[in-house]
């Protein structure tokens, strides 16, 4: 580190130059945290808009319980991919899409897309079907914990005890907020449902880690474009045909008042994901996943204004718990200047 010594000995400008840079680094981290929170806000808006669309025909008349949500999410991801492609054309990144797909990191981003897209979503729906919404939602909400463990193991991300506590509190808040009483009745495939819910948490948590790995070498805006397109294409070719979802997909596409609502949801969702992926490579994926949970609070706010949701006690308590967790995760931005442990 002879350079550092020289810099200091010259005094004056060199020392202050480093200080200026350190301020820039801190500003970068803070911008990353704001980006992650912005992603949560747009994700909340996206969920509310998509919910409005899914309550309309043809989604209400699907042949199976899987057809509507899977067709809706495929269409949503397709639109998100189109909006992001436009963004990448306007910002001069579009050539990087094909280039990235030809590399190993690009392949890893696609793998993350499969885990977070069709596999995560499909497993979640199977979990609801076999074990009931109460367990499926509660377990799958634990995805940031899975993500943080994987980020620690694979990416060597530094996660202090306070941040771990914050992540767990955020997840607890999401469970409280999404709480529905367990349904009675017999569930012959209950444990299969629990397994599927765990698979959903694994898929969603792993997506963030794989994406962050890929983005060591690929631009986040390009990575998320690939992710959305992969999710839509694989859903169309390999998932929807098996759940009688293609007809719903097609009908939604030609129903003007439905398709524009999904296009709007895709706009919010696409840019939410763009901010999420950008934040991953600015302040670490373990923290961003926890901060993304704040979408649940934003979802409540938007639902309050756009739909007629009733604000119940568990919604309020859940929102407060998530906020406390998020504050603990954000904690001291200076810790995030170097995201990964020395190996």
């Amino acid at each position, binding site marked *: 580190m002879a*350079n550092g010594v*020289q*810099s200091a000995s010259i005094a004056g*400008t*060199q020392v*202050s*130059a*480093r200080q*200026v*840079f350190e301020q*820039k*680094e801190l500003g*970068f*981290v803070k911008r990353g945290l704001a980006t992650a929170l912005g992603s949560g806000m747009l994700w909340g808006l996206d969920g509310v808009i998509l919910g409005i669309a899914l309550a309309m025909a043809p989604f209400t008349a699907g042949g199976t319980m899987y057809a509507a949500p899977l067709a809706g999410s495929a269409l949503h991801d397709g639109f998100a991919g189109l909006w992001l492609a436009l963004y990448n054309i*306007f*910002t*001069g*990144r579009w*050539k*990087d899409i094909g*280039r*990235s797909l*030809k*590399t*190993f*990191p*690009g392949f890893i981003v696609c793998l993350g897309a499969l885990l977070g897209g069709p596999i995560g979503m499909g497993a979640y729906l199977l979990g609801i079907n076999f074990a009931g919404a109460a367990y499926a939602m509660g377990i799958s909400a634990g995805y940031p914990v899975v993500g943080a463990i994987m980020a620690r193991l694979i990416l060597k991300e530094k996660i202090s005890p306070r941040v771990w506590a914050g992540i767990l509190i955020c997840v607890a808040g999401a469970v409280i907020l999404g709480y529905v009483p367990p349904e009675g009745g017999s569930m012959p495939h209950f444990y299969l449902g629990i397994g599927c819910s765990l698979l959903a948490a694994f898929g969603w948590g792993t997506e963030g880690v794989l994406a962050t790995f890929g*983005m*060591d*070498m*690929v*631009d986040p805006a*390009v990575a998320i474009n690939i992710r959305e397109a992969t999710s839509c294409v694989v859903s169309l070719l390999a998932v929807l045909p098996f759940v009688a979802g293609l007809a719903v997909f097609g009908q939604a596409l030609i129903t003007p008042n439905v398709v524009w609502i999904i296009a709007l949801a895709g706009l919010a969702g696409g840019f939410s994901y763009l901010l999420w992926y950008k934040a991953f*490579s*600015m*302040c670490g994926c373990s923290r961003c996943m926890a901060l993304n949970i704040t979408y649940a609070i934003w979802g409540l706010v938007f639902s309050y204004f756009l739909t007629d949701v009733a604000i119940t006690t568990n919604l309020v308590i859940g929102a407060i718990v998530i906020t406390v967790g998020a504050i603990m995760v954000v904690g001291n931005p200076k810790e*995030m*200047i*170097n*995201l*990964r442990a020395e*190996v």
Partner: protein
Amino acid sequence: MAAVLPMRFRILHYFSTVKEASTKELMNGLRSEYGSEGQFNENVINEHLMSMRAGGLIETNDIELDQSNNLVVNYSITEFGQGRLKYLPKSWKI
């Protein structure tokens, strides 16, 4: 001629070919490959560098102010960053 790499990957590769480089030197080195593209501007490239530094792929060496008081940061690749080069396409490996 090897296929063009995604720009962030090429930036990492570039640092493996030089001892260190500032943003300007890096841009001069990559201009012939990416110069005509909208993403090839100082703001975008500085964002890549900040992310790559936070992720431990590159590190900072000398940080100076030039004559017009602009920050000049010299970066070099880390051992961890070198490790990521194993994912380069075959045609890019030496």
